[in-house]
């Protein structure tokens, strides 16, 4: 009697273990790889961006790009401290808080600076995410899987750049539903979101929408390709990054 119960428990746990493992094993088997990368896609080892603040330095100009970005990605407009933003502008002091010298050149001091996710090489948000909902792609983009995000907001606490926003309420409440971009999803309530370096455009060979519309003020390319437009600018111009001391290796550079 006792013996049969023990055997039953053994068998049951074995069955449970098999059930848990089997679907994944089956999904990865088969040999037939039914998916491939779009041949038009552009590739990099680490995508990076250089923002030339001598060319792009007014709030109006940056807001115009932000409006394009937000319309393209269906980012809701919330006018409160619960706001959601992928691309925005701020002052020198707020953008480079540890690099604000007294008597800074007035012209530099009064510029507006474009801010977005830095797509760090060593992102702390990816390190803390408990579900791999935010992850680093092979091309260096710090991506988000909104299907998987549980909304714990650990990534927001971990991001030293304040690049992440949370959907405190139903995002569609704050979107003009007649003007949605039908080719891109919205988000749902209770997930974190941020700039995705236009991964959906790179996948079909286009440049990020802000870079494309910036008239040359924003350069985009592979940080590890010495011939890339990004490396060309970095070679020629003096650039700084936000909070280099925290060790995340941000990939958005600013020409001052």
């Amino acid at each position: 009697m006792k013996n049969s119960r023990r055997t039953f428990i053994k068998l049951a746990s074995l069955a449970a273990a098999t059930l848990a493992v089997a679907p994944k094993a089956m999904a990865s088997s088969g040999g037939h790889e039914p998916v491939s990368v779009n041949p038009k896609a552009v590739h990099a080892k680490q995508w990076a961006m250089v923002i030339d603040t001598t060319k792009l330095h007014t709030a109006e100009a940056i807001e115009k790009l932000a409006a394009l970005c937000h319309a393209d990605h269906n980012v809701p407009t919330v006018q409160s401290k619960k706001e959601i933003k992928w691309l925005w502008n701020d002052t020198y002091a707020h953008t480079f808080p540890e690099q604000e010298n007294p008597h800074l050149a007035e012209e530099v001091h009064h510029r507006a600076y474009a801010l977005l996710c830095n797509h760090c090489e060593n992102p702390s948000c990816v390190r803390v995410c408990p579900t791999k909902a935010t992850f680093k792609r092979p091309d260096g983009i710090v991506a988000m899987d909104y299907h998987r995000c549980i909304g714990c907001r650990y990534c927001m606490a971990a991001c030293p750049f304040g690049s992440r926003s949370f959907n405190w309420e139903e995002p569609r409440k704050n979107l003009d539903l007649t003007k949605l971009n039908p080719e891109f999803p919205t988000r749902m309530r209770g997930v974190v979101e941020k700039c995705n370096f236009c991964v959906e455009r790179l996948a079909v060979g286009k440049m990020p929408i802000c870079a494309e519309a910036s008239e040359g003020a924003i350069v985009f390319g592979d940080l590890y390709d010495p011939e890339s437009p990004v490396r060309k600018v970095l070679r020629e111009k003096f650039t700084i990054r936000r909070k280099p001391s925290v060790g995340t290796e941000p990939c958005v550079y600013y020409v001052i």
Partner: protein
Amino acid sequence: MLELALKGSKRYYGWIAFLLVLIGIGSMAWIDQLRNGLVITGMSRDVSWGFYISQFTYLVGLAASGVMIVLPNYFHSYKTNKHMVIFGEFMAIAACIMCLFFIVVDIGQPQRMMNMIFHPTPNSILFWDMIVLNGYLFLNLIVGWNCLQADRVRLPHPHWLKPFIYVSIIWAFSIHTVTAFLYQGLPGRHYWLTAILAARFLASAFCSGPAILVLVLLVTEKFTTFKMPRNALKTLVKIIAYAMCINMFFFALEIFTSFYSNIPGHMHPITYLFEHASAGLVTLMWTFIAFAAIAITLLVTPKFRNNLKLLPWTLAILVIATWIDKGLGLLIGGFNPTPFETITPYWPTGKELLVSMMIYATGALVVTILFKIATDVKKEMGHSQALPCGCSTEDHCDCAPAEAE
């Protein structure tokens, strides 16, 4: 043993009904949050964690604190504590339940919670926190329940429990260390980015947790025949005194490091909390300092420490002080100044407080039921019972009936 929780006085049932009403009221606010999202809270883009997570942090301390009774009992054979152990373990169960509940109400997509198990991510401290908290909950359930059951039939505690007991003692330190790691490993949050945070958490837990436990047991004594053995209480209060001194010493280390080094990032959260924040928050932070000073004075002076009339007040003051520090200031100071060196004030909304009330009431309900069972068993066994003279049957005072040892 669960049947013991079903048989109680009118007052016992009245109290349970009262707690259920509180839970009911709070759950309305929670339902509202589930329907409309975390928009009902005072949290924002810049202060993205708030009252829920800070209560979680404070209560992990309460969960860990039972070890201050359990450890002397098992590691030092300090058997004076043996009738107190169960209360430490049962308090830990209630605290773990509240902690997990506070996490559940804090996340934006609670129905996807299992993603933490479907996609386990060992590099995330939150993953480990989930493991250690659930583990600690089960360890205390196993150990507490089995020990009490053995006591009830006058049998020695089963041998197979030993490893669980020793693991649970070490585990208690791990839960609060891991909770501190949630905070102290984040780049760019200066108030948290300090190696001593875990140590500070433990020190704060080992004074505030036992203080809460003693307060609850003092109330328990009023309504049951249970009486804490005087020497066990005295030892525990001494532990509280030492832990509080260490806690404030660690806090002073933070102040020194920040201000002597003169590094702006390290000074700003502290000057914000104690100087530039809203008048209410600044007052609270100074209340923390004042209450901590009063509590330490009362605890280190033997005359005051041994005064049982004064003790509840001393402990209440200590709990308030540590709560302001860890259950409020820690979160607000961590998020302010923001990554943009700006200030975004945070204050919990009424609904946020109602949801928190629901969880605290749930914790109180669990404590009530578990302590009811434990005190009933103690009464059946005649362990640690109140004597007419005010002593406990475990004390060696004159009024105690001579025991054949």
